[in-house]
């Protein structure tokens, strides 16, 4: 819309002087030819011939110049592309051999009824949904990642708090109640071998790991893999997720800096960072959002026991500055500092270089940070490369594939998870990068791929923990630029994420809501809570924060209170204007001991 307005303005403005001249010139050129024909005066013709030669020469000269410039631009463009792809190859230097040298798999079926591109949380949730609803369904997951589908939240939380020295191998984490689970959704025996998928009785889910879909033919309902294999499908889900963004300052910095950089997303990033955290003296995390703050707290814990320096720097005024209102963001920053992290807010990176054996980060305000390793947690770029060959729309505001309220991009193509920019009937078009959203949208896509035709309606939630003693759950549009109303009480020892998971028997809170329906939930027999002596500055012990858009609650943060998500979801679903939010806050029972 903005573009339209600008164009209109341009059209209404008088044409610039140069162009007016050009118009006149053209007119002059045409006149001579007419006058040549009509008057036929030889003197004038001679003058005009000279004019033609000059203009013709100039035109040719211009033409040559333009052509050369275009060629140069093309060369510059091509070399820029080459540099970018070289850089991305370098940063993937640790990639396993399977992805580096693909060979055609002899037994990949040439056709599958359900093809899921991407092997993460959304794809797994969709596979489960399809299998539940369509008896005997045959589902193929094609994943660039060599690992079977797994959940990401523990990679920046629980796995770091594990006492098991083999945790990087097993990837199992003991939840607070002692129950252990793996980050993998299912063990390998759950899946059917790829070559057996067409024939296995009752169907199943097969995973083709370490392969990338590089081309999609929507008209022919086929895809092509990076090893040349072609697979046709009846229904397809795109769940390609995203890739971690990098800072331009770091991209420019060269190989020696890239060697000391982690872009955190996958299992191998966790393994690598865990090893590095035991070897170096100082790690700096760039980024003050969910991932950056969680990693900072996880590493900060190690800082205290192993003498590791942990620094976190970001442009905002405080941790979670884009999510929490300023007073709470400040409170949170103090909490992160108490976890052993040296937090530097209002820090914008200007350049990064290597000096001696250390990294030197220069900030725009002149400060310098010396460190051994950098973790960049500065956002996620949705993986939309397939949009080009598939002819799918990419959203210019939020990024990602544009889909409708039913997560559909085209008749047989759905998109779910981080890569989906979808229409939320209640809250408007958005793109959500959280675990529970991947589960909810993946499940919905699976339902719609098996004929349900349901829109996105069940609002997904998210959560974050800052160490084991402070945590929050949230739902809806939680944007710190919105006006907020926060209602707080004082926290006791019972109100921590630790006791929340003890009560519900799970570590991943999005499941705790749903599984509680089916089985008896034993209430933990923990000791009676001791009311904490109110400390100076610790006003925001527990409470609920409402985010408003035109007096309607569009987002809610449950601050250190748990298992109240259903009522929060209900309030957002209602979309009512409430006069007194303190009355709404009463529904949450924030003082409950």
């Amino acid at each position, binding site marked *: 819309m903005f573009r339209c307005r600008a164009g209109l303005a341009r059209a209404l403005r008088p044409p610039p002087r140069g162009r007016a001249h050009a118009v006149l010139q053209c007119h002059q050129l045409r006149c001579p030819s007419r006058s040549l024909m009509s008057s036929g005066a030889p003197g004038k013709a001679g003058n005009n011939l000279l004019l033609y030669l000059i203009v013709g020469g100039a035109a040719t000269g211009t033409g040559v110049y333009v052509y050369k410039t275009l060629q140069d631009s093309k060369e510059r463009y091509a070399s820029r592309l080459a540099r970018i792809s070289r850089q991305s190859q370098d940063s993937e230097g640790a990639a396993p051999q399977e992805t580096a040298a693909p060979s055609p798999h002899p037994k990949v079926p040439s056709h599958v009824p359900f093809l899921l591109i991407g092997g993460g949380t959304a794809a797994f949730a969709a596979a489960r*949904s399809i299998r539940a609803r369509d008896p*005997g369904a045959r589902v193929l997951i094609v994943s660039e990642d060599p690992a079977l589908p797994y959940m990401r939240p523990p990679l920046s939380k629980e796995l770091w708090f594990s006492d098991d020295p083999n945790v990087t191998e097993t990837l199992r984490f003991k939840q607070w109640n002692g129950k252990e689970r793996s980050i993998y959704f299912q063990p390998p*025996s759950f899946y059917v071998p790829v070559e057996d998928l067409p024939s296995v009785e009752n169907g199943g889910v097969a995973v083709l790991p370490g392969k990338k879909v590089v081309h999609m033919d929507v008209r022919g309902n086929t895809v092509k893999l990076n090893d040349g294999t072609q697979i046709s499908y009846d229904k397809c889900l795109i769940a390609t997720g995203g890739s971690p963004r990098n800072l331009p300052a770091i991209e420019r910095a060269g190989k020696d800096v890239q060697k000391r950089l982690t872009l955190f997303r996958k299992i191998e990033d966790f393994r690598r960072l865990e090893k590095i955290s035991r070897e170096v003296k100082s790690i700096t995390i760039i980024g003050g959002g969910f991932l950056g703050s969680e990693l900072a707290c996880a590493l900060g814990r190690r800082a205290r026991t192993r003498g590791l320096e942990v620094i976190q720097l970001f442009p905002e005024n405080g941790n979670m500055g884009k999510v929490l209102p300023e007073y709470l963001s400040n409170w949170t920053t103090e909490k992160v500092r108490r976890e052993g992290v040296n937090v530097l807010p209002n820090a914008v990176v200007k350049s990064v270089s290597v000096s001696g054996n250390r990294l030197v980060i220069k900030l725009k305000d002149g400060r310098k940070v010396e460190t051994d390793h950098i973790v960049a947690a500065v956002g996620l770029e949705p993986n939309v490369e397939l949009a080009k060959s598939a002819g799918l729309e990419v959203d210019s505001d939020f990024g990602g594939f544009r889909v409708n309220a039913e997560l559909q991009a085209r008749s047989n193509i759905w998109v779910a998870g981080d890569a989906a920019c979808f229409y939320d009937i209640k809250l408007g078009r958005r793109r959500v990068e959280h675990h529970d959203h991947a589960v909810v949208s993946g499940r919905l896509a699976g339902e719609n791929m098996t004929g349900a035709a349901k829109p996105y309606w069940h609002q997904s939630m998210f959560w974050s923990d800052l160490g084991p003693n402070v945590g929050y759950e949230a739902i809806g549009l939680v944007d710190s630029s919105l006006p907020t*109303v926060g209602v707080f009480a004082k926290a006791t020892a019972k109100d921590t994420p630790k006791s929340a998971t003890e009560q519900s028997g799970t570590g991943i809170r999005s499941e705790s809501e749903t599984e509680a*329906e*089916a089985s008896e939930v034993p209430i933990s027999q923990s000791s009676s809570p001791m009311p904490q002596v109110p400390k100076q500055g610790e006003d925001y012990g527990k409470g609920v924060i409402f985010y408003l858009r035109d007096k309607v609650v569009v987002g809610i943060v449950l601050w250190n209170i748990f298992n109240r998500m259903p009522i929060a979801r209900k*309030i957002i679903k209602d979309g009512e204007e409430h006069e007194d939010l303190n*009355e709404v806050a009463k529904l949450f029972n924030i*003082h409950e001991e």
Partner: protein
Amino acid sequence: MSYCRQEGKDRIIFATKEDHETPSSAELVADDPDDPYEEQGLILPNGDINWNCPCLGGMASGPCGEQFKSAFSCFHYSTEEIKGSDCVDQFRAMQECMQKYPDLYPQEDENDEKSSKDLEAASMEASAAKEEKASS
């Protein structure tokens, strides 16, 4: 006394326990139990089993999914005095299948008992709730 302060566009209320003990005047919109968009529990409004219920975990979608669905359906619709007593064959088929995947379906006896008891409990609760709804 509850009190409140304003920091720019953000309002902060500190509420006492006594204040919040008085009933809330906030009004919530009545839910439509037959809303087709809503997430359903284990039993759908029309009485069918919602195989996609998150509460079932992966039971209906795994390698033994078909056997599980067949056994549980039989149990759900069973009108025998001892509910499910006519479903022994289906449960046996399910057991046999599950024994082939010990790491998916742990074979300790207590676990088997617990999981089938949980399902029975869930199904009982669901059918009791349905009866209540029908009679109200």
